[in-house]
């Protein structure tokens, strides 16, 4: 496997959807190609850091206000009848 082929398969590999033959070829490539190993490892870390970051969590007080605003608007919509959104 060449480096460019590794890159094509990287997303499927990280998502765990590679067929077993390609996976073996890719892991064999990673065992000797340091650059691709680093790209693979740091891309995986990138995903994990974003996934675990709790970026843009909705604060509970705001959450309550938004939900009550949504439900009030839904009631108004119901009174006005369909087609009013």
């Amino acid at each position, binding site marked *: 496997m060449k480096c*460019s082929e590794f*890159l094509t398969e*990287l*997303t*499927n*590999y*990280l*998502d*765990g*959807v590679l067929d077993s033959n390609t996976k073996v070829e890719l*892991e064999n490539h*990673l065992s000797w190609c340091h*650059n691709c190993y*680093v*790209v*693979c*490892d*740091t*891309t*995986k*870390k*990138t*995903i*994990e*850091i*974003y*996934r*675990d*970051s*709790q*970026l*843009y*969590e*909705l604060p509970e007080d*705001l*959450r309550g206000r*938004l*939900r009550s*605003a*949504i*439900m009030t*608007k*839904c*009631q108004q*919509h*119901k009174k006005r009848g*369909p087609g*009013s*959104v």
Partner: protein
Amino acid sequence: MGAIQNKLEGPVSDELTLVRAAKGGDDSAFEELVRRYDRNVFRIAQHITQNREDAEDVVQEAFLKAYGNLAKFQEQSKFYTWLVRIAVNEALMKLRRRKPERTVSLDEDIKTEDDSLPREIADWTPNPEQQYSQAELREILSKTIQGLPPGFRTVFVLRDVEGLSTEETAAALELSVPAVKSRLLRARLQLRERLGRYFQKRESGDGDQ
């Protein structure tokens, strides 16, 4: 090095029960759906708009639109996927209004295959996120993802942050599966490269004195 595990499996078992009850006029069932997905919608909206007030508006508008159009929801996809599609459209509309000078579209032309080939291949420190405080790390992550085109960051957020499958992401964004995969690869590689500026391993004894 194994595959990434998705954080969200999504409690879908009684989703349909709630949706049907809401369709039948049970507002408490709809409120339960709001409670279930409001955090996700807010996160997606803020990732796309990069603006907290806009994200708040998107949450309200998306749920209100879902409520008003519930009868049209065909139940062929998950309610959540349908809701995400509505929310993404609302968020992109906000972005267009705020940045009319820039084209905001999920169909941005993808350049040649070479433009996202990694240029910098420096390794990172073993636990890069521990070098920074939580607040600093959030600032870094937020700034870094802001630099991606909206079409790329939307795919990344739905797939990698919210844990939608490739097929669900494609359905929510009305893109093909190959288009989702291609954008996802570019988004991941671009973020990796940009984060490298903060997380790169520093060589010891590099002559700085």
